[in-house]
């Protein structure tokens, strides 16, 4: 993990929290365990899945199952850490036509407040996804299981959404074509965290 690269985001988030919502009760913080967490994506080429993942990302999580509105999650993605286990494809993925990591080094998902979803342990995170400088509202459905209580309790959250890459400008020029590589991309989030 490149700790320094996420400092500004963390500080900004902390400052934003102090300045804008000083009176709001903060839900307990959960510390993501990077080695046990994964942020994956599945693109579709000729109806076959192309599996990829972001090897570097950070999640700041505040969650209280009894006070969902007080929760907050902020995921910061290091776009240059994307890999599909193929060097030439990864290089293309990071190039100007797709992720354009030079101009847009990070992506993010920010949700303020959670909602209960349908089913046991099911929740919704209505938030905003930013990729390649474009922000769109998305709602991430996820399940969350908590083991233990208080500090040191363990949480496991799993969620997935399907987005359209062109909604975020991921696919300029020749890559705007969706007949070979589909517009839809599945994103999967699997996070394990420990309560602070």
């Amino acid at each position: 993990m490149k700790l320094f690269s996420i400092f500004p985001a963390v500080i900004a988030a902390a400052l934003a929290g102090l300045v804008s919502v000083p009176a709001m009760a903060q839900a307990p913080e959960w510390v993501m365990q990077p080695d046990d967490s994964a942020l994956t994506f599945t693109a579709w080429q000729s109806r076959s899945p192309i599996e990829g993942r972001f090897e570097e990302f950070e999640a700041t999580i505040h969650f209280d199952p009894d006070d969902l509105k007080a929760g907050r999650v902020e995921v910061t993605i290091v776009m240059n850490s994307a890999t599909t286990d193929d060097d030439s494809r990864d290089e293309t993925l990071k190039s100007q036509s797709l992720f354009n990591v030079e101009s847009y080094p990070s992506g993010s998902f920010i949700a303020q407040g959670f909602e209960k979803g349908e089913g046991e342990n099911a929740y919704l995170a209505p938030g905003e996804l930013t990729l390649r400088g474009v922000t769109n509202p998305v709602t991430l459905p996820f399940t969350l299981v908590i083991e233990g209580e208080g500090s040191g309790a363990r949480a496991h959250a799993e969620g997935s959404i399907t987005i359209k890459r062109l909604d975020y400008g991921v696919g300029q020029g020749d890559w705007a074509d969706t007949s070979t590589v589909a517009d839809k991309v599945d994103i999967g989030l699997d996070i394990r965290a420990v309560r602070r």
Partner: protein
Amino acid sequence: MAEQTAHQTAHYDRVAKLLHWSMAALIIGNFGLALYMVDQPLVPSTIDLYNLHKSLGLLALGLAIGRVLWRLRHPAPPIPDDHAAWEKKAAAASHHLLYLLIFLQPLSGLMIALASQYPTTIFGLFNLPSPIDPSKSLSDIAGAIHWYGQWAMAAIVGLHILAALRHHFILKNDILKRMLPGGKG
């Protein structure tokens, strides 16, 4: 009867000719396509070109199998006796090499495709299932074989063409005509 065959060179049969010339077109076309596609930027249309190359390669493998099966039941017409022993040996050697390469090239290409991280779409109709997990080392090895194989193929095909033209224009015999369409089988 015996005297007659000394003058009239027997042709290859129609099926052998069809297999030969369709394979010739596939080899030359797919070689040209390969040289072009590897220099293109990785964009969707280039992926389509790679899939076309793989599709034609699989077709070539099918033709190669068909060709061997046909040849086993329908032997090639013998080389006329007015050819030197070295010519017969050289012809046999280069033909055997060609047979080896028409299997080696599609098979090594297929191995690259199966070991790669990319799906292989055959003529846009269906995706080739892969029985193996993606493997960079395996696709690299297959890639090296495919790369050397293509230049071996280019060399042997070049020799094959030059030899055929030598027979036709310099030696002025019927060796090339045996494989040209239209003649009697």
